């Protein structure tokens, strides 16, 4: 079989690298969901109190939980559920941003496992500035932009630290990212612990939370989301994330800066030889990554109704780590990140449906995500399998 169309001289669509990336992502997703279903079946068979019907319900929710409309009598009912879809868009927003963060760093040959720390810095900046300006009676638009930009800048500066270590001392960014994650977790807790004005003392029973931004009115406009998906948390943050994704795509593929970043990722020494300042680009890449991750946090908390549990020094936000599967599944393509982010948050919704409608719980979604990450670690291997033996035969 010829891989090149003889009439145009171009590669046939089904032999391009992009097609194979999509295929290997789909295979990873299918295997992940199959593993999830298998666990549901095994647990259902060994545990008393779960009938065959319960198992079947669980499997259906893993695959189509997003369409679930609850229970109709004893049977699960399916259909378009605006609350589920809206919440999916809402929860996808931070995932898309952290996914972009990891993807940009990957393109420069860096593994940004520091997204959780950058995310936390974004939360601290946004909430502090938003609440302070909101209380001071600042116009909402000014307060919104100030809060957003503070968060992004803090995250970018935080991301710069591993970049500097990598560029000047050649220290593996994975280690420095992990260290800065835990430093950030402690710093943010310390910051909120010592500032009583940010703590939500008014609402009883909510100990340990920061005042939500809706109390001071600094929130992202809905931009039509409340009409499309009534009753859900969706807001304009999703549109902003999509615009940023396209902007990142243009930056990485159509600009000199993007070309330099990618060149450093392909071969740092060759790029240096060609006259590209590799140190500057590595730091810049980590700063962009940090800014994107913290922008996700800003958009999530500027929604207004989300509440931040501030005593977080013993744990890191999962949104940061989930940027890794989002980027891997999208093969680091910024536009594809939007779709893989949506898929991850869909799994998340399926998990909550599973929890509320069956005897299973939401962690099955996390297992599926982990399996997908595991498989994407050897996506090269899957791609090779897709190529089959033909390439070895030299048939180009």
């Amino acid at each position, binding site marked *: 079989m010829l891989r090149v169309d003889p009439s145009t001289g171009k590669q046939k669509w089904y032999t391009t690298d992009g097609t194979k990336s999509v295929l290997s992502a789909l295979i990873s997703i299918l295997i992940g969901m199959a593993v999830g279903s298998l*666990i549901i079946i095994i647990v259902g068979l060994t545990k008393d109190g779960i009938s065959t019907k319960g198992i079947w319900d669980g499997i259906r929710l893993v695959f189509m939980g997003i369409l679930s409309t609850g229970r109709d009598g004893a049977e699960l009912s399916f259909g378009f559920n605006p609350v589920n879809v809206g919440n999916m868009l809402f929860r996808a927003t931070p995932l898309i941003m952290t996914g972009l963060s990891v993807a940009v760093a990957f393109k420069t040959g860096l*593994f940004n496992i520091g997204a959780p720390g950058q995310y936390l810095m974004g939360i601290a900046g946004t909430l502090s500035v938003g609440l302070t300006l909101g209380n001071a009676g600042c116009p909402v638009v000014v307060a919104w932009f100030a809060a957003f930009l503070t968060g992004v800048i803090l995250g970018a500066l935080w991301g710069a630290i591993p970049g500097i270590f990598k560029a000047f*001392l050649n220290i593996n960014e994975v280690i420095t990212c992990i260290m800065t994650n835990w*430093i950030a977790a402690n710093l943010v807790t310390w910051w909120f612990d010592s500032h009583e004005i940010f703590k939500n003392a008014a609402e009883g029973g909510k100990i340990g939370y920061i005042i939500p931004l809706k109390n001071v009115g600094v929130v992202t406009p809905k931009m039509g989301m409340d009409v499309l998906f009534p009753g859900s948390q969706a807001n304009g943050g999703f549109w902003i994330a999509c615009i940023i994704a396209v902007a990142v795509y243009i930056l990485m593929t159509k600009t000199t800066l993007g070309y330099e970043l990618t060149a450093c990722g392909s071969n740092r020494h060759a790029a240096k030889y060609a006259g590209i300042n590799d140190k500057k680009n590595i730091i810049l890449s980590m700063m962009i990554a940090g800014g994107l991750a913290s922008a996700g946090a800003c958009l999530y908390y500027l929604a207004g109704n989300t509440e931040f549990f501030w005593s977080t020094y013993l744990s890191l936000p999962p949104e940061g780590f989930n940027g890794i599967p989002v980027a891997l599944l999208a093969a680091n393509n910024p536009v594809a990140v939007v779709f893989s982010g949506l898929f991850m948050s869909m799994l998340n919704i399926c998990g909550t449906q599973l929890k509320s409608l069956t005897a*299973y719980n939401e962690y099955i979604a996390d297992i599926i995500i982990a399996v997908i990450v595991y498989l994407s670690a*050897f996506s090269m*291997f899957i791609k090779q399998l897709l190529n089959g033996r033909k390439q070895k035969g030299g048939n180009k």
Partner: protein
Amino acid sequence: MVFLIQQTLLFAVPLMIVALAGVCAERSGVINLALEGIMIFGAFIGVLFIRVMQETGMFEQEQGQILMLLTMVVSAVCGALFSLLLAFSAINLKADQTIGGTALNMLAPAIVLFFIIMLIQQTKMGMAEGGAASWFMIRPSTFGLPKDHSWGPFIDVFINKVYLSTYICLAVFVLVSVFLYKTRLGLRLRACGENPQAADSLGINVYKMRYMGVMLSGALAGMGGFTYALTTANCTATGAVAGYGFLALAVMIFGNWTPLNIALGGLLFGLFKCIAATYATLDINGDGIYLLNEIGVSPYIYRILPYVITLIVLAFTSKSSRVPKAEGIPYDKGQR
């Protein structure tokens, strides 16, 4: 003072053993970023095993020490089995080891929490009856002596109100260090992390050695995870070990991949952890004054310091680092 030393040891020992776990894998040439995940898994298996044994009634409170020993073995074996996932992807499929490790770090809490909730409908699993102290702590009554018996200030530090697991971990630490640095097999394992091609040319099976390194690493991390849950979390599993696996990675780098320095680093970091956890009620010289509390240094400083120190040490030692040369590079027989 007695309290400070005992608490420091409790915090330091899991760190040391898990940091050594990291060394085993990295010396064989595989980056083991999954230490945190394996610890979580080991802690869960350990607590689950104790629960099941208690429920079947095979062990009474008097046989607590035997049950604890058995549990350490079980969590070590399960940790090794769990780490096979990393070994398979990193060695056979030549996958990116960092991503593989991250996957395991995500998989472990997900699986553990899924099963804890399926088993007991809550997110925290403890023992079926009693607590870690009443079942497993060594006290005068363990030796049949009266409750307020004292062996004198020096011996008290080491055998009154301590856990046997601490000493077993220390012994294992010494044994594995000797294995890595004083035996032929250990030398071969380390060769695979420095120059696998040369090792292979001398007839060493690189794949086998790397499997051994990763599984040894998994066993130590699983055991360390259970020890952590037993001694500092009152024998409960929650699907998290508070970043201990990552702190152990920091200790490993701080110790420059050598056991003696890791032991020192573990003690230092353990001391910080201990101070951060107990600074408000810490009476160092027994005069009734809580010195550290009165200095007024925030506990967050103590919590942050280990990570900051690691960053600084990294910055200054990056030139003389003893990081294994072939670490993170999949071994390909066809490559020279």
